[in-house]
C-alpha cells in the first residue's frame, strides 16, 4: 500500500507536484500516467524518500519511508535505467545493496537468475545494453522480495520480447498480492498491463479509477457494423435514434445505440450482419482528451503548450 497525502513539491517558482493525494492498493497493477514533466518521477522519488516534499507526505505500508526497518524488504524500486557504477559487476552491485538490508547471497543469485542475467553476473555493468541495464534494475527492485514495487518507465529500451517479459512480471507480482505502481508514457503498453490508473497532469491529480472506467469515460465510443445492405441498415438505425457515420471501407460507425440493440433491430428487419463490434477509444485517446481538458480548464497555458504525452 502506497499513500500520498496532499503531496506538494515546488522547485523555485515551479510547482512540480501540486496537492496530490492518492492510494495505490495491493493485488493489482496501478498505472501512473501523465505527460512528460507532469511530476511522475518526482512523485516516485518522494515516495522513496529521495526527494523531500515541500508539503504533504507519502506513506508506504502505513509508515514514512525513513521509518521502515529494512526498506528493501518492503519496497523495491526501479527509478532510472542503469543507475549502476559502470565498473562494478552486476553481482557486486546487487550484493552491496543486499548487505545493507541483511539479504543473503542466495537471494542475489536468485534475482539474477529471475531476470536472466546469471551468465553476465560477473561482467562489468558498463558493458551492458540498455535492456540488460533495465533487467539489472528489475533485479535490484526484487532483491528484498518486497510487497510494494515501484517502476518508473520499466520498458524503456527493451525489445518486444523484453516488453512482454516485463508485462508478465508486473502482472505476476500483482497476482501474488503485491502493490505494483508503474509509470509509463507508452499508453498502449499501459493498456495491456494496468488494472487501475492514477493520471496526473502538471502535478495535479486528473483521474484515479479502474482502467475500464477511464476508457469508458471517453466520449469516443461506438459500434462498428458491417452489413451487405449497409444503406438499408443505416436508415433503420438512424430512424431508431442512432448516429451513423459511414467509414471509408464501407463499415458503419454507430453511436448512441448499444451493440445488442443494433443486432436485434437488424434481426427484426431481416438484415444480415457481417460485423458487430463495440469499439472504445484507445487509452491514448482517452488520455489525450482528459489531459487536454485539464489544461484548458486551468487557462494559464498558452495554446500549443500542452506536452505531448506520446513523446
Amino acid at each position, binding site marked *: 500500500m502506497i499513500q500520498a497525502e496532499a503531496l506538494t513539491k515546488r522547485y523555485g517558482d515551479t510547482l512540480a507536484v501540486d496537492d496530490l493525494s492518492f492510494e495505490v492498493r495491493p493485488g493489482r497493477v496501478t498505472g501512473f500516467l501523465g505527460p512528460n514533466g507532469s511530476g511522475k518521477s518526482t512523485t516516485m522519488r518522494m515516495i522513496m524518500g529521495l526527494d523531500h516534499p515541500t508539503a504533504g507526505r507519502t506513506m508506504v505500508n502505513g509508515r514514512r519511508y525513513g521509518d521502515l526497518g*529494512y*526498506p528493501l524488504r518492503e*519496497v523495491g524500486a526501479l527509478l532510472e535505467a542503469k*543507475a549502476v*557504477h559502470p565498473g562494478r559487476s552486476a553481482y557486486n552491485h546487487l*550484493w552491496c*545493496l543486499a548487505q545493507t538490508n*541483511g539479504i543473503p547471497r542466495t*537471494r542475489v543469485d536468485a534475482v539474477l537468475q529471475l531476470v*536472466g542475467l546469471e551468465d553476465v553476473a560477473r561482467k562489468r555493468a558498463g558493458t551492458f545494453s540498455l535492456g540488460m541495464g533495465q533487467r539489472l534494475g528489475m533485479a535490484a527492485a526484487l532483491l528484498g522480495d518486497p510487497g510494494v514495487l515501484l517502476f518508473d518507465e520499466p520498458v524503456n529500451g527493451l525489445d518486444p520480447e523484453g516488453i512482454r517479459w516485463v508485462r508478465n512480471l508486473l502482472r505476476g507480482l500483482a497476482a501474488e498480492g503485491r502493490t505494483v505502481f508503474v509509470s509509463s508514457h507508452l499508453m498502449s503498453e499501459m493498456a495491456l498491463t494496468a488494472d487501475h490508473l492514477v493520471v496526473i497532469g502538471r502535478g495535479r491529480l486528473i483521474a484515479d479509477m479502474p482502467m475500464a472506467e477511464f476508457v469508458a469515460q471517453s466520449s469516443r465510443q461506438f459500434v462498428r457494423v458491417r452489413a451487405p445492405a449497409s444503406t438499408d441498415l443505416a436508415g433503420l438505425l438512424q430512424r431508431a435514434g442512432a448516429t451513423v457515420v459511414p467509414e471509408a471501407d464501407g463499415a458503419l460507425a454507430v453511436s448512441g445505440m448499444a451493440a445488442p440493440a443494433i443486432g436485434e433491430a437488424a434481426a427484426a428487419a431481416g438484415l444480415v450482419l457481417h460485423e458487430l463490434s463495440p469499439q472504445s477509444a484507445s487509452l491514448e485517446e482517452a488520455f489525450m482528451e482528459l489531459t487536454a481538458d485539464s489544461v484548458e480548464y486551468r487557462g494559464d497555458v498558452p495554446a500549443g503548450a500542452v506536452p505531448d504525452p506520446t513523446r
Partner: protein
Amino acid sequence: MPTATAPATVPTVPPATGRLSPAGVLRSEWTKLRSVRSTVWSLLALAVITVGMGALICAATVSRWSSSGPLERLHFDPTGRSLRGIFLAQLAIGVLGILAVTSEYGTGMIRATLAAVPNRPLVLAAKAAVFGAVALVVSEVVTFAAFLVGQSLLTSPVPHATLGQPGVLRAVAGGGLYLAVLGLLALGLGSIIRHTAGAISTFVAILLILPLLLQAFPASVQTALSKFLPLTIAGSMISVQQTADTFSPWAGFGLLCAYTAAILAVAGVLFVRRDA
C-alpha cells in the same frame, strides 16, 4: 529468456525483524570500494608516486651532494627528503576520496543507496569510515616503504635516517596520517559538490592554487597565513627538522583534522537536506 511468474518460487528473504545495522552498511561500503577497478588503480598510483618519487629525489640528492653548499648540508633532512613524493601522492588520494562519493552521483547509484539506507548520516559516516580506514592503512604502508627505499639509496657520504632517531618515526607515520585525513577532506568536498570534475578542481585549488595566490600578498602576510595551508602542514608533518613560521607537526595535524571535520559536518548537513 526468463519466465515471469517466478518470484513466489525463488529463495525468499528471511522475515524482516529489526532495523538496518551500521555493520551492514559498513560492509556494503567496503564492497563498493573494493569492487571497482578505479580504487585499485588510484591506490597503485599512490604507491608508485610516493615510493618512486621519493627514490628519484634521494638518488638525485646523492648524485649532486658534492656540489651542495655547507648550509644545505646542515639543513639536510633525509627523512623529509625521502617522503617528498607525498606532495604529488596527495592528489591521488584526493581523487579517490572524491570519487567515493561523486561516482555515486554521476551514475545514479546514490538513489539506490539511499533507497536501501534512508538514514543519510549513517551512509556518509559509513563511507567516511571505510574510506578513511583503507586510506590510512595504504598510506602508512606506502610512506614507510618510501622512507625505507629512500634511506637505502642515500649512501655515504650523504647522511641517512633510521626509524630509531628522534622525530623520524613521527615524521614517517605523520606522512601517512596526512594523506589519510586529506583523503577524508576530499571525500567531504566530493559530497558537498557532487560532481567529479568540480570537486577535483576545488581540491586542487585548495592544495596548489591557494599557495600561489598567497604570493601576491606582502611577505608578512604570507608568513602569517602560509602555516594554515595544507601544503605547509604536510611539509611540517613529514620533516624531522622544523622551520620557524609553521605549526608544530601535531598542531598542524590537529588543524587539518579540524578542517576535515568542518567540511564533513557541512557535507552531512547538506546530504540530509538536499534531494538525492
